[in-house]
C-alpha cells in the first residue's frame, strides 16, 4: 500500500516538475515574426573609371592577295571584264 502511495506521489511530482518546466519555456508566447533582413547599406556609386582613350578599331586588314591571285585578276581584266554592272538607279519622273 505504501508503495502505491509513493508511486502516486512520485508521479504527481513529475507532473508538477514538467508543468514548471513548460511554464519556464513560455510555450504560449506568440511567435515573433521573422526579422526582416537589415536593409543593405547602399554602397556609394563606384567612382567613374578614369577615361582611357580607346583607339578606334583598326580598319579591316586589306584582303591579302597573293601574287598569283593578283596575276589572275590582271589576266581576267585583259581577257575582258565580263561581270555585269549593277542596274542604273531608277529614274524619278516618268519620261
Amino acid at each position, binding site marked *: 500500500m505504501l508503495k502505491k502511495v509513493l508511486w502516486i506521489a512520485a508521479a504527481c511530482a513529475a507532473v508538477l516538475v514538467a508543468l514548471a518546466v513548460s511554464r519556464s519555456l513560455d510555450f504560449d508566447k506568440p511567435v515573433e515574426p521573422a526579422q526582416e533582413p537589415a536593409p543593405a547599406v547602399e554602397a556609394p556609386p563606384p567612382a567613374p573609371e578614369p577615361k582611357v582613350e580607346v583607339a578606334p578599331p583598326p580598319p579591316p586588314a586589306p584582303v591579302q592577295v597573293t601574287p598569283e591571285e*593578283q*596575276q*589572275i*585578276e*590582271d*589576266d*581576267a*581584266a*585583259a*581577257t*575582258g*571584264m*565580263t*561581270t*555585269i*554592272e549593277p542596274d*542604273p538607279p*531608277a*529614274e524619278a*519622273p*516618268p*519620261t
Partner: protein
Amino acid sequence: MGAYGLRGGRIGRCLALASLAPLALGEFALAQPQSPPVLAIPPAAAPAPAPVEIPALTPEQAQVALKALRDADLHGLQPKAYAPEGLAEAAALTTAQQAALTEGLIRYAHDVRVGRMEPDKFPSLWQVRPAAYDPRPELAKALAEGRLQAWLDSLPPRYSGYAALKRGLVRYREIAAEGGWNTIAEGPKMELGASDPRVAALRARLAVEDPQVAATGGAVFDKPLQEAVIRAQRRYGLKPDGVVGNNTLAYLNQPVGQRILQIIANMERWRWMPATMPATRVQVNAGAAIVTLFRDEKPVLSMKAVSGKPGDETPMLVSSIHSVVINPPWNVPSGIAQRELWPKERANPGYLARNGYRIIPVEGGQPRLQQASGDQSALGRFKFDFDNPFAVYLHDTPSKGGFDLYARQASHGCVRVEKPRALAEALLNGDTTWTTEAIDKQLEGDKTVRARLSTQVSVYILYWTAFGGADGQMHFRSDPYNWDRELLQRVGVLASGTKV
C-alpha cells in the same frame, strides 16, 4: 580573195582532222552525248521590220531624247549622226522635227546596243557578232509607258569591261583637251641611276596617265621613277624591267588620239558580245595572248598564251570545249606542210622521220603528214577541242620559250596555252574517270585518248587592245592584227588608209 576571205591557208591552220585522227577511244573514252556547240552564227539578213506605230514624243521625252543623242560621244559614237541639227530643247517640235528625232533615237539605240557594223561587213574571222536588233518595238513601248530614260540606260553593254572603257574615254579625252603629252626623243636606254636630260620629259609623260607620279622632279632616274616605268610597262603589256628603251618609248609616244581611237574600237567590240555569258567559261584575248578560266563568274586560273601571228590571225569566235585530247597527234594542214615542212625535208632528207612525222598517202591527192603524239608533238600533251569553222583549238606545246616573250603572236592561228595540265584538270574537275592519277598514268605513254567533258565549257576567243585593268588604269596593247584600224574604217570612224 580579200584579206579576210576564207582562203585555204586560213582554214584548218591547226587542222584537227578529228574524224581522220586515229584516236584510241580506249577504256577512258566516254561516249557522252554532246550538246550543240555555242557557235556564233552570222546573223541572216534582218527581215523587214514589221511596221511599228511609234507615239509622238512629249516635250519632256524630246528633251530626254535630245540629251541622250547629244551625249552619244560618251559611248564613242558621233552625236551628229543621231541628233537632228537645229533643235532647241525648250522649243516645241514640228512634225518633221519629231520624225527626225525619232529616227535619230532609233539609229542611236541600234548603234549603242549592237554596234555600227553592218552584218555583211564583218570579216569572216570576226565570228563574235551581235544578233539583228530592231529598236522600234522597244522604243514605242518605252514612250507609251513613260520610261524612255530607263530604256535608253538599258541599251549599252552592261559589262564592267565596257563601263571601264567608257570611263577611260572620258579620261583620255580630258587628257587630249589639256594638250595630250609630248613625245620623248629616242636615245640611249634610261634606267635607274641614269642622268639624262630626257628624264624630266619621261617624268612628265608618265604623270599624265599615272596619278602616283609627280610631273616635276630631278634629272636623275630615281627609284620612284623606275617604279612608275614598271607600272607603265605593265599597262602596255611590255617586259616590266623598269628600263626605258626604244620599245617602251614607242608605246609612251603613241599620241593620245591613238589611245582614244583604240578605246572606241574596243567599245564597239563589246557591243557584239552576248548580253550574258555562262558563269563557267574560258576567255581568250588573242590580242594580249592571255587565257582565263572563270568558274561561277570568278577567275580561277589564268595563263599566258601564244596566239596566231599576223597573217595567221586567231579568229574571234564563240564555241564550247567538248573534249580534252591527251597525247594528241598533229594532223598537219596541207598549207603548213607545203610551205614549211616539205621544204625542210628537201633541204635535210630525213627531217620528217626524225621529228616524228609520218606520210599518209591520199588517193588521188597530195600525201598528208601526221606527227605522232608524244613529247615532240607540236600539240604537246593536251588539246582542247571545240567546234568552229576554222579548225582552231587550244593546245599544249613543246616550245615553252614562246611564253617568255611579251609579244606572243606566233602560232598558225591556234592558241597555245602555258598551263595545259592545269587547264585540263580544271575542265575535267569532278570527272571520276579523269582523276589526277589517271591523267598521270595516261601521260606515261603516248597513247591518244579523248576525254569528253560531262558538261561542255564555253570558250570565247576575243580581241581586246584596250581595257580597264585591275589597277583601275587603262591598259593598251599594240593591235597586233591591225583589227582596230580595220574596225574603225568599216564603221566609218576612220577614212580608209588612215593610220590609227
